[in-house]
């Protein structure tokens, strides 16, 4: 036989779409912040990592550190863990903005970026103290059900499990909700105004500081939601998770056109697919090489990304 196996390819595509969903959620946090204050929020990936730890700690407190001996899915515990992570990440992101970025809004461009790198270091170290240096197991609490083999009765490499359904049915509504907030609410309108012209928004009576804080809150909340999905899907977490996740999500945001909400979501899915295909066809150790090469190639040939509009000399 040999050659091209369709089911291997489809299996990779399936994994890619699900992974793409949480990459997209993190990417939205980058793109929202970049769109409004042109800062690469370097600490965002590490915020997501801390989110997985909040989920883990909440589940431990509620008595679900391990799936052994637990019958059924403790939906209430998962809901509490997710809300805890969303609130924690949102508030922490706002705090970081208030302390480390806001005073530097008028400073040269390098200053807030370096400050963000500093915040990222602080988060990583908090993670290290919180759960230690070894990878932690995340309880496997979702039902083990594969729709392809158990519902349709097809035997193949392709799997569409309950976990995939769970991730997609949470991530997609969240993205739609974000789009709705930005498009239809008063604060969403203010966000778009500040992104377009900060000085003018200020003159039109928009409380720019509040709008920027709200943007950080939204980004943090999405990262918090993504962290529960990541934990339940991959069943592990470690304090160094944030760097990788952050870089992937940032790549996704750039791929879609940074500052563009739809672009970030699209970029997340494309990146998820790309990394799943790289793992399938080249092996896991080449995954990040593929991702970063893609990043370099996009930035070199199409710095505006797939859906980005021409922003002139922005960078």
């Amino acid at each position, binding site marked *: 036989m040999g050659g091209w196996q369709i089911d291997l390819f489809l299996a990779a595509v399936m994994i890619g779409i699900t992974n793409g969903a949480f990459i997209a959620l993190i990417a939205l946090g980058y793109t929202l912040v970049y769109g409004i204050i042109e800062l690469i929020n370097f600490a965002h990936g590490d915020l997501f990592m801390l989110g997985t730890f909040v989920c883990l700690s909440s589940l431990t407190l509620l008595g679900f550190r391990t799936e052994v001996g637990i019958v059924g899915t403790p939906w209430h515990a998962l809901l509490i863990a997710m809300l805890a992570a969303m609130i924690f990440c949102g508030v922490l992101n706002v705090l970081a903005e208030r302390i480390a970025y806001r005073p530097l809004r008028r400073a040269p*461009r390098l200053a807030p970026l370096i400050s963000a790198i500093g915040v990222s270091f602080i988060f990583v170290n*908090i993670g290290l103290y919180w759960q230690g240096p070894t990878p932690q197991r995340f309880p496997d609490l979702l039902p083990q059900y594969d729709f392809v083999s158990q519902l349709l009765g097809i035997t193949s490499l392709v799997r569409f499990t309950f976990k995939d359904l769970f991730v997609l049915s949470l991530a997609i509504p969240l993205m739609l909700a974000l789009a709705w907030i930005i498009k239809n609410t008063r604060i969403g309108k203010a966000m778009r105004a500040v992104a377009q012209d900060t000085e003018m928004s200020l003159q039109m009576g928009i409380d720019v500081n509040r709008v920027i804080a709200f943007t950080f809150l939204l980004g943090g909340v999405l990262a918090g939601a993504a962290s529960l999905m990541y934990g339940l899907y991959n069943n592990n977490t470690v304090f160094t998770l944030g760097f990788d996740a952050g870089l992937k999500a940032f790549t996704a945001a750039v791929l879609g056109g940074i500052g563009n909400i739809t672009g970030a979501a699209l970029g997340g899915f494309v990146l998820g697919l790309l990394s799943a295909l790289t793992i399938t066809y080249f092996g896991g150790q080449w995954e990040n090489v593929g991702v*970063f090469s893609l990043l370099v190639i996009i*930035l070199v040939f199409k710095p505006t990304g797939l859906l980005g509009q021409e922003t002139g000399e922005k*960078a």
Partner: protein
Amino acid sequence: MKPKPNPARSTLGWWYTTTGKARERQMLVTIVGIALALLFPVINGLLGLGWEAKAVPIALFIILALGLNVVVGFAGLLDLGYAAFFAIGAYSMAFLTSAQSPIPWVAQGNQVNFFLAMFISAGVAAVFGVILGAPTLRLRGDYLAIVTLGFGEIVPLVIKNTPELTKGTQGMNPIGLPQVPGVNFGSDPIPWYYLIVAVLLLTVVLTSRLRVSRIGRAWAAMREDEVAAASMGVNLVTTKLFAFALGASFSGFAGTIWASYLQVIAPEQFRFDVSIFVLCMIILGGLGNIGGVIAGGLLLGGVDRILFDWVSGIVHGIGAAIQNQDLQLMDVSRSRQLIFGVALVVMMLVRPEGLFPSARVKAELHAAEEDEGAVEQERAQVVDVER
């Protein structure tokens, strides 16, 4: 940017960019600095500090910081993947001098002379600097930072994933030692110290001369305003590439010495933390100012290699005295990242120009405080130009 007026030429007059009292002070600091660097092993021996093995990496990282300062401080190109060139230098050294080299001719026992290999490796690193630099010419600021960061991640990963060439995570070992008659580079850190100080002095001389040269002024012009620089006749392509290549070759130099000094190199030694650590040095010391960068390197290196051990020792001592198990086992260097993270944020908030800034950077950063109104107006104009 007006070129500096030529200071009156006296003995060594061409050397200094300052005049009068400032020049005397600069001269004094330079002489004292060189003397302290050369006499350090003696002082160390007399005081019984036992820091000779710690001074070697500190001095080496200062070379890295000076090289990165050319790219970030002089040319204003934020490079977050500087460790990649450090790795490329180190691995070229290993390829040229190690018995485990993938080059059959070398592996059969024809190791290249250390000093020759050092220059070849620096050249290889410079070539990679141009390879990275060329496609990123169109990018600025944040985007450039991210591409370099990506490159800095790719290089160690590729090294890790090609064990047939680089022995992967296992690392390459042993690596050729410098052969100087009568000097034992095997176990004694002192010859290494002098070798590194020699390279360091060379780096200082080269970079400080470059800064005031034609290319150095072109870098400054480009850093401040690319469009204006280009319209004044600065060739942005060659100017940028030269900064990248030069920065990379200093990093490559440092890499070769590091490989030979440690005798074993593995991809994990060249991760993102190294790039950031070096960046912290130049930001802490003062971007663009050679003296400041050296001071920043000494300070951070000293905190990292000497102070943390010392504080850990004190904490263990207190723990032993009050019979506290936790204190006895506490390792302060575990909080290294936390301390550096806080330092970076505080530094940016309080003193973004660094501890010892160059006059030019300081003037830029504090212009805003002098006259809010005028600056606001200026900002508005800048915004207009950008649109």
